[in-house]
Structure formats: structure tokens, C-alpha cells
């Protein structure tokens, strides 16, 4: 792995994340948290890739479990954020 390249990407993405978030109004703090939380479920990609393995069996069990956990995180996170944001629609 090209550690220098990966670190560059990591650090630049960190600054991008920090730049976007500074201007968030307190009203949206909870949906922001649950929305970013859903994004952290990106580890699902890694979980899916782990099904390449056909041994040892412990790795397979843990791999499937990681798919389940990450999917709960992703699906639940985006849906609940959506549910919350719809309540924030402007009421006239």
C-alpha cells in the first residue's frame, strides 16, 4: 500500500469535512449526527469484500456479522435522518 498517498487523501478529506461542518446551525445538530453516522457505515464496503474469504470459518462468521451491523448502521441511519428532517420542513 502507498501509505503516503492514503494519508494525503485522509488528511485532505478531514479538512474538507471540517470546512463544511463549521457553519451548521444548532437546529440541525441531531440530523447531522445521525446522517454522518450513516456515512460512517461505509465500512460496509469492507464487510462485503470480506466475503471473498472461504476460510477460516471464524473469519466468515465475523464477516457476515459485520455486513449485518454495517447495514443496520447505513439503512437505519439514513432512514431515521430522513424521518427527522421531514419534521423540520417549514410550517406555515
Amino acid at each position: 500500500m502507498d501509505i503516503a498517498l492514503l494519508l494525503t487523501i485522509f488528511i485532505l478529506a478531514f479538512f474538507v469535512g471540517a470546512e463544511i461542518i463549521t457553519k451548521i446551525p444548532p437546529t440541525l445538530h441531531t440530523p447531522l449526527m445521525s446522517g454522518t453516522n450513516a456515512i460512517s457505515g461505509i465500512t460496509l464496503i469492507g464487510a462485503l469484500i470480506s466475503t471473498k474469504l472461504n476460510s477460516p470459518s471464524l473469519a466468515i462468521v465475523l464477516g457476515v456479522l459485520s455486513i449485518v451491523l454495517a447495514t443496520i448502521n447505513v439503512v437505519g441511519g439514513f432512514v431515521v435522518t430522513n424521518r427527522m428532517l421531514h419534521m423540520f420542513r417549514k410550517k406555515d
Partner: protein
Amino acid sequence: MPSDFAQFFYLIASVLFIIGLKGLTRPRTAPRGNILSAAGMLLAVITALVSETNLNWGYIIFGLASGAVIGLWLAYKTQMASMPQLVALFNGFGGGASLLVATVAILSTQRSEVALLDGGVFSYIAAAVSIIIGTITFFGSMLAFAKLQGISRQPLNFKGLQIVKGLFFGCMLLCAVVMVTFPGKLIWLIALIALSALFGIMLVAPIGGANMPVVIAVLNSYSGLAAGATGFVLDNTMLIIAGSLVGASGMLLTRVMCKAMNRSLTHVLLGKPMAKMTGLHQEEVYAGKIKSTSAEEVAMVLESTRRVVIVPGFGMAVSQAQFAVRDLTQLLERRNIEVLFGIHPVAGRMPGHMNVLLAEADISYDKLKDMDSINPIFDQTDVSLVIGANDVVNPDARQNPDSPIAGMPILNVDRSKTVVVIKRSLSPGFAGIPNTLFVADNTLMLFDDGKAAINAIIAALKS
């Protein structure tokens, strides 16, 4: 490293995440922002499924389907008041998944034909980092969930906890070094997970109710960092970018929360108790100076006002009073009384907790004012109605330099003409100190459950 083809679609997914997050910064664009992020996730998942070879589709379909069912069930059935618990749970699952993927990657170097990591020293360091952060996130979040759910109530703290934690941290690092040096010995992997689990529990154990917003924000950040570290293990830029974005946003939110409590992040994380209070004892402060009132009297006061500011706290969430508050707001507005809401950044148990509850009750977000915009208005406010909030309205923070909360930014409700505090009892808030607001000349105390009190005021106003 993913193929060029995959890399290209991962790039599009990353851009969707960034645009989506940007959308989340304004109420009007937020729903679209969330959908863009979700689309980014879908694209990333499809890219992985299409570009990777030899995946086991049976396991994948089983995992995705059962995860989606559980996720949807949790997302739809959870009440808004329980949102802090749900966010804690989801944070934990994200961290747990990262921990498992890193563990599987290490196992894959043992007896499998395909290895998920390249076997270089950096990949093992990344795996160790991913396991440490992922495990802390999982166990810390589970304990935070238990605390928020009321399963585990008492914050655990004892003299020497800092030293024990320091020792554990040292052992954890040592264990990680050994694991990286001798990757063939799984015992060190197990030891590292066990130590990190205990460390995560010790990190959250001493933290009590009102510090919860900080903890949730920290765990949110960690769940992102764990995913990012897993990206280093698998050599996958998608995980690194998305994880880093979440890590950064969680860090910033944590900083906002700490500032609002006037505490440093290290103090909250180390579970340091607040400075010991000096001189003020509850009995001395409150003795004979509390003016108790009735719903009828509050209704009479409210009738002749022009502007009311409602200050909600965790008490409103506990008694589910937001719908009664909405009814009261509408009743007052019909009588041409302006109603605003003053919301402290750490009111409730997670960042933005009060806003979500009030939005659930259909109260428009432009009535919800943050601390900086509501504080200048209290001077021209007839009645401030405090519902189940305590330390965040304690004028001691401003007036008494010896107070443990001295310097903490508060809502200056004491500057309004009349203050009505709805509270079940005189029990202290998280700082464990008496509140001098309760004995101020312009303060009336209405001792009742939040919802019952508001409904009684509504009834009195109507009659």
C-alpha cells in the same frame, strides 16, 4: 487498491457525500442533502459488488437483507424522545463493523488463500488502529445506550480511575506493538480487543447524564475514524474519504458541545469531576426563599404579556411535554403574544435534542433561537418559561466566580421580567449545585411534571 473503474465511481460517491453533507447545513436543503448522501452510499455499495470478484453472494444477500430489516425497524419504531439512544446504538454498530472487518483482515493472513491486507507493517498498524478505535466505539456506545435507556444509571467514578485508565492505555499500545511485530500470534489480537473493550467502557462509565451530548459527539467522530482506519487496512480510498469526513464533523461538533459546557474535551473524556463547590449548600441557598406558584397564577401572569420565551431542558423530553408546549404556544399566539424558544446547545442528551422534539410537535424552526440570538432578547421578555432545565439557566455561572460552573455560557432567563420554572423538585442538575435562579425575586417555581404543568396552564388560560 480498487481498479481504476471502481476508483472512478468511488470518487463520484465521495463527491455525493460532500455535497450531501453541505446540504445538511441548511434546513431547507437538508432533506435533499441526506438523500444525496444515501445515493452516494448506494453507488459505493454497487461499485464494490460489481468490481470485486469472487464475492459470496449468499452471505451478502443474507447480511444486507437482515441488516436492512433491522435498520428499518429501528428507524421507524423509535420515538423522537429516544433519538439519543438510537444514535448511540448506530454509532456502536458502525464501530463494531469496522472492528470486525479489521479482525477478519488479520485472520485472512492466517489460513486463507486470499489475504485482505497486503501484509506490510503499515497494514498491520492500520489494523491495530482500526481495532482499537472500533472496539472503543462499540463498547463505549453500548454503555452510552444503556445509560440513556436508563439501564445503567449511576456514573461510576472512583479515585484512581485515571491511573487505571492510563495503565490500560499503556497496555493497549504495548499490545498493539506486539501484535504488529508478531502478526501470526492471534492471542495478541484477542488481548488487544479485550483491552480496548475495557478501555471503552471505562471511558464512558464515569460520564453522567448532562455530559452525554459530548460523549455522543465523540463516539460519532470515532465511528468515522474507525471506518477510515479500516480503509487503510484494505487499501480502499472510499472508506478513507468517507470515514475522514465523519471523523472531522464529529470532532467539530464535539468542540461546539465542550465550549457550551465550558469544559475541555480532555476533562469530559477523562471523566474528571467538576471543581468542588465552595460554600454554597442547597439548604442555605433555598431556605425560605422559594416562591411556589400554581398553574392558575402562571396563566394569569401569561395573559398580560407580550413576549414569552420558553426554555426547554431534558425535563421536557422526559415528560414528553413537547405536544402540550405546542398547544400552549398556539393558544398564546392566538392572543397576540409572541412565543420564542431559547435553546442551550447542551440541553437534553445529545446535540440538537430539543430541536428535534419541538420539530416533532410541528413547532416551526424559525421560532427556535440559539443561545447567542436569544440572550439579548431576555431583557425585553415578559415571561421566561423554563421547562425542566437547570444548570444551563443558573446565573451563578455569570455572577459567582467560585461556582463550579463559573464561565459556562448560560441562557440569561433571570433578566426577563418574570421567570416561571417548571420542575418536579429542587433536585440539583448535573453540576450538583443549587441554582440561584430559583430564589431570585422575579422567579416563581411550579413544582410538577412538565406535561402535567403545561396542560394545567392551558386549562387555566382557557377558563
